[in-house]
């Protein structure tokens, strides 16, 4: 790095867990319903109502924490985080303070373009909490009225806090991508940033070596980043801004309270928000309405055993056992669990991982993207793809014509056999091929002369003519036979 500073980044990610119902009541937790239609006395915080933990939410968070290599304490409890806000109807949020359900994990990140060395990012803790509602500020009408939608109130959130282990915006982005991948693999969240099921806050400051020694700049928390790209841009902007401010003011960590800044996508800048000073005392205390949750070591092992193959393990298996390149493995695995499931079925059925990888990462992904369909709705099923690969490998289908077959499978939804049949593809007998080449050479003495003079590429037009005479002729083989015949002087 050529910058005169090191950027220190930690990320706080809020993930909405994919449960049917909310964390402490039976209301549906789905996004997009009419405002205030998914509410009950509990999530509205009405007098007398009481929370009861949704076991499914705890199980999903346990699964996530185990996948993040976290320690799972045998005892965890609920705390109330207290502050006044209109979209927080109880005046407190049920969260976890000093005894979170998991801590001290890690996740590995790497970059296929080699912009940074592979590294482990520490996970400080992951804890479960309820979401607040949504405030809708009606500024258009000029009445300055605000409306509250409590549909989201009480939906389960897992807050995953990383150690400040990242040193560049590229590392931060890789962390987010790997985390999202992991969460979708294990099926705990849809991680849809637009619908708010994955939200990112970043803590960032700079470390500088100066003539007077090691200096850290004040930590800034960045909020309001709505895409991974925005996170990367905001971090880059913020690092430069902090360096400039440090040069101007010399302010160090501890000289000013932690600042919160909001990212503005339109201007590409972070803007100062309200200082955290005044709201820092949340008066946390254990929620007396809820009972602590106990988890045995046996239960944790059961969850670990049931996790299945995680992205990092799958990459290792594809390279070490099935001979894919690291790049290919990365491209495949990063497509997410649905594509990977498709790939694995095609690869396992055909026994050709490399072949399946080529088809999936090229033709299949392109077609899926063009058609904008989910892979399980795609015209060519994984088993059909496996049949296609097998036909090629068995020699039933000359490789050069495979794309034509694939097109028919894709467009006309034919199976492999029907497509081969329709195209009239059949094996060409070797002796027929030799006869064909001999005829062609005889008819083109100029080309023969050129080849004899060492211009091997002159054979090209003959390959084209051969294909016209017999579409099933393998162009590679035609080329080889022709060159051989010329060399033998026939």
């Amino acid at each position: 790095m050529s910058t005169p500073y090191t950027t220190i980044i930690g990320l706080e990610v809020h993930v909405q867990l994919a449960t049917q119902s909310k964390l402490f009541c039976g209301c549906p937790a789905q996004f997009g319903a009419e405002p205030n239609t998914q509410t009950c006395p509990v999530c509205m915080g009405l007098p007398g109502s009481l929370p009861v933990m949704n076991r499914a939410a705890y199980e999903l968070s346990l699964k996530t924490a185990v996948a993040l290599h976290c320690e799972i304490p045998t005892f965890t409890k609920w705390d109330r985080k207290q502050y006044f806000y209109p979209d927080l109807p109880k005046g407190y949020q049920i969260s976890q303070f000093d005894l979170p359900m998991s801590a001290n994990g890690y996740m590995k990140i790497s970059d296929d373009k080699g912009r940074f060395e592979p590294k482990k990012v520490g996970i400080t803790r992951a804890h479960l909490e309820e979401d607040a509602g949504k405030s809708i500020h009606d500024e258009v009408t000029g009445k300055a009225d605000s409306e509250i939608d409590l549909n989201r109130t009480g939906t389960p959130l897992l807050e995953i806090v990383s150690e400040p282990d990242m040193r560049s915006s590229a590392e931060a982005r890789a962390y987010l991508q790997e985390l999202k991948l992991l969460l979708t693999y294990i099926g705990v969240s849809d991680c849809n940033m637009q619908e708010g099921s994955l939200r990112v806050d970043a803590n960032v400051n700079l470390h500088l070596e100066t003539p007077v020694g090691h200096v850290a700049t004040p930590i800034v928390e960045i909020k309001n980043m709505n895409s991974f790209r925005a996170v990367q841009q905001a971090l880059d902007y913020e690092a430069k801004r902090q360096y400039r401010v440090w040069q101007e003011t010399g302010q160090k960590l501890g000289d000013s309270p932690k600042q919160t800044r909001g990212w503005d996508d339109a201007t590409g800048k972070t803007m100062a928000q309200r200082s955290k000073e005044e709201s820092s005392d949340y008066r946390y205390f254990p929620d007396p309405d809820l009972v602590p949750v106990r988890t045995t070591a046996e239960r944790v092992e059961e969850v670990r055993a049931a996790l299945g193959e995680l992205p990092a393990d799958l990459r290792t298996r594809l390279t070490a056992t099935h001979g894919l390149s690291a790049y290919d493995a990365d491209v495949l695995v990063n497509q997410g669990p649905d594509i990977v499931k498709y790939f694995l079925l095609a690869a396992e059925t055909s026994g050709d991982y490399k072949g399946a990888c080529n088809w999936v990462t090229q033709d299949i992904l392109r077609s899926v993207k063009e058609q904008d369909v989910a892979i399980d709705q795609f015209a060519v099923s994984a088993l059909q793809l496996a049949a296609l690969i097998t036909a090629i490998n068995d020699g039933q289908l000359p490789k050069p014509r495979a794309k034509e077959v694939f097109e028919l499978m894709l467009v006309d939804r034919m199976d492999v056999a029907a497509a081969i049949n329709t195209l009239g593809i059949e094996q060409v007998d070797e002796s027929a091929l030799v006869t064909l080449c001999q005829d062609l050479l005889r008819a083109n003495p100029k080309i023969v002369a050129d080849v004899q003079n060492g211009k091997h590429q002159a054979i090209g037009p003959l390959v084209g003519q051969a294909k016209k005479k017999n579409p099933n002729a393998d162009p590679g083989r035609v080329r080889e036979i022709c060159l051989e015949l010329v060399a033998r002087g026939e």
Partner: protein
Amino acid sequence: MSLINSTATEALDLLAKGQITSVALTSAYLQRIADTDDQIGAFLRVDADAALARAAQIDQRRQAKQPLGKLAGLPVAVKDVLCDSQTQTTCGSQMLASYRPPYDATVVARLKSADAVLLGRTNMDEFAMGGSTENSAFQLTRNPWDLNRTPGGSSGGAAACVAAGMTPLSIGSDTGGSIRQPAGLCGVVGLKPTYGRVSRYGLVAFASSLDQVGPLAANTTDAALLLEAIAGHDTQDATSLDAPVPRFSAEIDRPLTGLRIGVVREHFTTGLDGEIEHAVRRALDVYQSQGATIKEISLPHSKYAVATYYVIAPSEASSNLARYDGVHYGHRTDRAELLDELATEQKELESAGDREALKNIDNGLVRMYRRSRAEGFGPEVKRRIMLGAYALSAGYYDAYYLKGLKVRRLIRQDFDAAFQQVDLIAGPVTAQAAFKLGEMAGDPLAMYLVDLYTVSANLAGLPGISLPCGFTQSGLPIGLQLQAPPLAEDTLLRGARMYEQATEWHKKKVPI
């Protein structure tokens, strides 16, 4: 003999045999309410029409030989702290003066499914904070034995209406003594169940780890009957205990053999009124004459109980009452007045040139919170919110709340050790008989000390009962408190019934 002179258990029998109707019974109690409650003030609201309609419906179902619940046709009064979708739930507060919940508390739902006839809602200290019912935002309740005196609190209305014969059965809630203390001061039976025995779902929270709903009645058998109807596991309350509910009323007449009663040394110290001490000692004599052994025990940490209670209860209350902020329901300050106030302040600060203050002036939302809560809550509620917010603040949490939790554990351990040696603990309910209305108005600390003998059961989660054990020379009731190990309500009730069978105190009628 008027119908209201029979016990709930007797009335239930008469109803079952078809000798009386629920309409007749309900009418008799409604008549008694109409005759006496303008002097007492026990009820905040009585819905006579709804009660009579309900009674008629139950009578019809009985005639049609349809299955009926276990309280079928019996009138029950409910403290105005339990949600009922058919009426307001005010908690004695301006904050909720017109609040009507959209759902039934589990206890209310169980009363309805037991075919009880709900007469109306009883007065209480605001959000159950107080020991005299004087903290009600709406009205005073008077002690039926002496109209110049308090019925106790916070379930003052719930106890007074039973004492005055306005209902055979009544539901209260007890966070630090709020059922037992008014029962004691009004000469009725009041029982606080084991924490978790009765669902808190729909009980508007004061202090969640201490609150319990319980029965009040003129005698122990009726209290047992009511407890049976409301007790039991509830999946909507995570702190509810999944334990079977014995048929308390069926077993209650069976005396306890070899009963060992503990008498707490620390209970009989300075401050305990001589007449009360005398009555309690006489009660112990009664037990002894029935074959019980009396054993002196020590609860060494009981001297910290009131202090611990007044850290933990307000801490929880400060959090539980945060939701009353004027946003979603309940009292909200007048918008125009609020905006006027802010504009005036702004102008004053501008003309004074006070920039710092101008910068810190409330926005509309914050001022709405401040004014709504200032207007909606009474002084005692505000005092406890401030106490609790302070005890939970950063820098004070360890010294107050956390220490409170530790002492609470020690108090519970004292009881666990004591119950190794005895089956029940007996003692006074209060140190004094009913005090005069207004007597403690200027002295909140003296009012807190009224809870001296009752708060320990809440801190330890134990069941406790108050039952009549005599009268002062001036004619005020005296209560005897029994406490039992967790979930030993059956022992508690049978022990209380043993005493009741040997005495006549519970049969004495109020002078009005």
